[in-house]
């Protein structure tokens, strides 16, 4: 069953068509990769799926419900979380606070205003659990901006996980990482995919071909192919447009 489905989604910025006639279905429980050259409209599609942009045309359905035009926070609460290509974390506060804020949102305690955050035990315990799971417990009190780049990328994903998503969208989780760290993130994605559906935008074909159940290829705002890794590898159009015969 498809957990997420788009019907004829289109998005224009002035004269540029970033997404045109996108019809995709994301299968529940699988890892789906979205690939395509720079400017193919991959991040724009994530922005539409999560409500950051409203599509000019078309609809987004999540678990059978039309969520087109919903605000971001409402979509997140429905169970779609997202990590970002450019690091998007809270830099001025400790690592622990980043996760704690996410858990606090998940437990809907944000409007409590007279009790200290330290008194919300279930939030703090859950935040520590998550830090433990993602392997950042040792740096929990470090101000986030002093983290290593690899740890920041993990934290970026950890924040998204803290909202207990059913569907996790990851925008280039290995971007800027050395190959050893890429391996760490790859295994991490594999591990969390047992608990949720994952859609990942990725450039590293090694990662894409080993983790994906399905691949969607975008080119100039359009879906030019979708299928299993084998099918995509064999697809001539994809070879020409994107892979350039590398694989």
């Amino acid at each position, binding site marked *: 069953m498809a957990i997420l489905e788009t019907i004829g989604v289109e998005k224009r910025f002035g004269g540029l068509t970033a997404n045109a006639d996108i019809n995709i279905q994301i299968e529940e429980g699988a890892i789906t990769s979205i690939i395509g050259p720079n400017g193919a409209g991959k*991040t724009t599609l*994530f*922005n539409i799926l*999560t409500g*950051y942009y409203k599509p000019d045309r078309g609809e987004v359905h999540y678990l059978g419900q039309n969520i087109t035009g919903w*605000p*971001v*926070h*409402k979509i*997140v*609460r429905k169970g779609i*979380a*997202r990590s*970002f*290509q*450019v*690091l*998007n*974390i*809270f*830099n*001025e*506060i*400790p690592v622990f*606070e980043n996760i*704690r*804020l*996410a858990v*606090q*949102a*998940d437990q809907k*305690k*944000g*409007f*409590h*205003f*007279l*009790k*200290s*955050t330290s008194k*919300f035990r279930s939030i703090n315990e859950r935040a520590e659990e998550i830090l433990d799971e993602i392997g950042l417990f040792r740096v929990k009190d470090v*101000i986030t*901006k*002093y*983290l*290593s*780049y690899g740890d*920041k990328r993990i934290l970026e994903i950890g*924040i*998204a996980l*803290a*909202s207990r998503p059913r569907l996790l969208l990851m*925008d280039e989780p290995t971007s800027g990482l050395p190959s050893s760290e890429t391996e760490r993130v790859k295994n991490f994605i594999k591990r969390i995919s047992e608990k949720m559906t994952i859609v990942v935008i990725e450039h590293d074909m090694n990662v894409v071909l080993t983790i994906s159940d399905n691949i969607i290829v975008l080119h100039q705002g359009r879906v030019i192919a979708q299928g299993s890794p084998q099918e995509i590898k064999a697809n001539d159009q994809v070879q020409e447009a994107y892979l350039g015969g590398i694989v």
Partner: protein
Amino acid sequence: MKIVRYMLHPMFIIFAVFLVAPIFIMRVGGMSLAIEVMIWAIFAVGYNILLGYTGLPSFGHGLFFGTGAYLCGLIQHHLIPGTWISILGSMLGCSIIAGILGFFLARKRGIYFALLTIAFTQLFFFIAFQWDSVTGGENGLMGIERYPLSIFGLFRIPIDGVLSYYYFVYAILVASIVVLWKIVHSPLGSVLYAIKQNEVRAKYLGYNTWMYKWVSLIISGLFAGLAGALYAMLQHGAFANPIHWTRSGDVVMMVLVGGGLTNFFGPVLGAAIFIALRDIVSTLTEHWYLFYGLLIVFIILFLPEGILGYLKVGQTSRKMISVEEKWSPSLSGGASDGHP
């Protein structure tokens, strides 16, 4: 050991200083200035929830301070003459106005937010200045009294004397600072500070950031209204002046001078410096704002975290700037504006 730590806490020091200050001030005169400092401190610490913790630069908060003063007078003249009722009425009125204006303001950010606050405060200024029959126009709304406090109808405490009014304002200052401190360290405060750092990510955590910014406006409006009412009772009148946008900037500068943008107690020091300079320098020259302006230029250039920030006093756990910041390279690359 624990007691020593409490006693060195800036909150304790502020409370202690203002508690004993009258002993010295009574000898040299200037009690009403000291009261003014406390009133502006209430205003500025509350305003800092919006500016420092939520990151919304309002240059029009004189609107709420001035309106609070008028509401205090209007309630006394036309509804019930009483101290509590006029103060609570001003707070309620100002939070309602902040809520209404917040519908327009909370969707804006940065320069658009700032310009809109200036536009609103000017609008209110002209209304207050022109509407003679209600506000007294140019002459101000006079005859605002300090009625005796009634505690459950059992005691009546007069506050019309300067010393009794001082301690009345002191009690409200203490209560305000405690409440605002709790807000800053609560889940709500943590979300506001998250919005300041990265609003897009805050949305992606599932926070309805619009609503939080709106609440932040209401909180700051409420404390501005409280301060305005106390100010009206101090001066026995309410005037349009504080609403003008040029005067609305005063509170912004108090926050910046005292502790930059993230120091909880900075605004208290900022208020004291502002009032002291105004009083001392203005006896020497009528261009005292010139000297104040120079001070601000100096602080923004050389002490961007304000005086308390420079002295490393009172940084809350949420901030924890370390000396490392001066040299530690930032690895994050320009991700801070948070656009995906």
